[in-house]
């Protein structure tokens, strides 16, 4: 069978789509199990072995719930809101390089949905659009609490986008490119010491930028301690107060996909992407001692790198949940103060520091 290269790329896109959905599905399960373990409980363990079928049971429950439209709601936008939240969340995983190239004879499969040279800006744009789903849904519900949640979401996302962008600029100053693939490749080092690859990860050169970025990532994905838009104690359910059935499910799902994408972006930008320590040594060993061809060895490295990237992503997702079940929610004025008077000046300071270090040749 003759597969055109574009068809392979389409297949990769489909797989990325499916994997994002699968990870979001099991994030709901992981969230409940992790929450239970952190609170000395058991968690869901009834549906299937270890409760692994729990997401399916939840989906069945959501699908069979009543489809509810509040009186005076704008019906079209009420449906459009969750759809938009889901679409923007799913779109942002398109440019993330999940792995290097798999080479099978003539066909080369890039383990990345699509490579564009402004990949970072693309992710940033999609993240900034994510707030529309929340705003439209909150407004169309015709409910004061939903509207307050929507307004909170809007102001919070805009505020933290600034600090996030400024933290990114420091990374881009070092890398000199916006392509996530290029940034990944730059985090491999040829320096001859043991943990060379780890020492070349951007987090080693940008610790402050990474802290700013991860705080902003929490705020952008509306996760605790920054989940003000859906703050139950003040706003009942926030922007999704009036939602039921699968429309509610889409909102919850979009949040988990956002968490997945944020974890993937952090892994790629700061933690070396699909690079892992000793990969060059491993490849040389496979070629010299095991007598494999270079292409086969490279394919093995690529698959290991894919596994490594997902290990990084999962540890970030775990961190998101760990923080959620540890920290209480910020108050709204504290949130704004943290964003505007602490993170933004810190990020500007970080840019100046990076600029100085680059100028004096400390880091490249």
């Amino acid at each position, binding site marked *: 069978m003759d597969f055109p290269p574009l068809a392979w790329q389409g297949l990769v896109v489909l797989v990325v789509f499916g994997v994002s959905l699968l990870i979001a599905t099991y994030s709901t399960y992981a969230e409940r199990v992790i929450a239970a373990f952190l609170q000395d409980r058991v968690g869901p363990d009834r549906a299937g072995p270890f409760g692994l079928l729990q997401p399916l049971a939840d989906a069945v429950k959501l699908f069979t719930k009543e489809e509810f439209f509040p009186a005076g709601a*704008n019906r079209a*936008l009420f449906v459009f809101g969750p759809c938009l939240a889901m679409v923007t969340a799913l779109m942002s995983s398109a440019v993330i390089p999940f792995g290097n190239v798999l080479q099978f004879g003539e066909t080369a499969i890039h383990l990345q949905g699509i490579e*564009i*040279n*402004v990949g970072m*800006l*693309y992710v*940033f*744009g999609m993240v*900034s*659009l994510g*707030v*529309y789903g929340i*705003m*439209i849904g909150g*407004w169309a519900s015709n409910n004061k609490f939903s*509207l307050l949640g*929507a*307004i909170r979401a*809007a*102001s919070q*996302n*805009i505020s933290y*986008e*600034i600090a996030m962008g400024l933290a990114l600029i420091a990374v881009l100053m070092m890398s000199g*490119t*916006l392509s996530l693939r290029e940034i990944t490749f730059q985090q491999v080092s040829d320096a001859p010491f043991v943990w060379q690859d780890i020492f070349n990860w951007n987090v080693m050169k940008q610790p402050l930028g990474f802290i700013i970025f991860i705080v902003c990532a929490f705020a952008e994905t509306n996760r605790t301690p920054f989940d003000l838009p859906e703050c139950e104690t003040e706003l009942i359910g926030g922007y999704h107060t009036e939602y039921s059935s699968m429309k509610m499910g889409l909102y919850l799902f979009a949040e988990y996909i956002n968490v997945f994408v944020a974890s993937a972006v952090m892994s790629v930008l700061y933690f070396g992407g699909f690079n892992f320590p000793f990969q060059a040594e491993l490849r040389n060993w496979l070629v010299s001692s095991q007598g494999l061809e270079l292409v086969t060895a490279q394919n093995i490295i690529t698959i290991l790198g894919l596994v490594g990237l997902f290990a990084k992503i999962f540890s970030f997702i775990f961190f998101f949940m760990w923080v959620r079940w540890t920290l209480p929610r910020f*108050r709204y*004025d504290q949130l*704004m*103060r943290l964003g*505007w*008077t602490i993170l*933004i*000046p810190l990020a*500007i300071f970080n840019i100046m520091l990076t600029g100085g270090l680059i100028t004096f040749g400390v880091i490249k």
Partner: protein
Amino acid sequence: MSPLFLFLSFVALLSALGVVLAKNPVHSVLFLILTFFTLSGHYLLLNAQFLAAVNIIVYAGAIMVLFLFVIMFLNLNEETEPHKPALAKFAAAIAGGSLLLILVAAMRNVNPVGYDPTSFDSQIGMVDRLGLVLFQQYALPFELASILLLAAMVGSVMLGKRETGERNF
């Protein structure tokens, strides 16, 4: 004229009309966002990826969020829409008509230059090229604009700073 261009132009014009004709201001804002998206599509067709991405981030992602934010606060329903006097409508029609007239008059004599296939650089819209142009040819205006933006940002941070003696809860 590729079918993609025709489709994008069609959607752009339709959504631009939607901005003006929609009764509900929130619908207008959403149509405007759609217009920005089609414009970004045009930029992509022109191989200007950076411009397309920045258009989405800045206009669709930030400015229109603020628009929507303010309109949600205003609570403009169809029931609460104030009746506009006939004089205002008349004045608006005159102003809009004269703007159209000026535009048509200005565009009438414009001759599209087109491009020279031998000397055209298809990579002109890429990030690195754009950066070179900005920092070599237009370094002074670029720096002035960035200082302006930095001053605005510092100002906003200063506004948010706690005054001495303000209650700290």
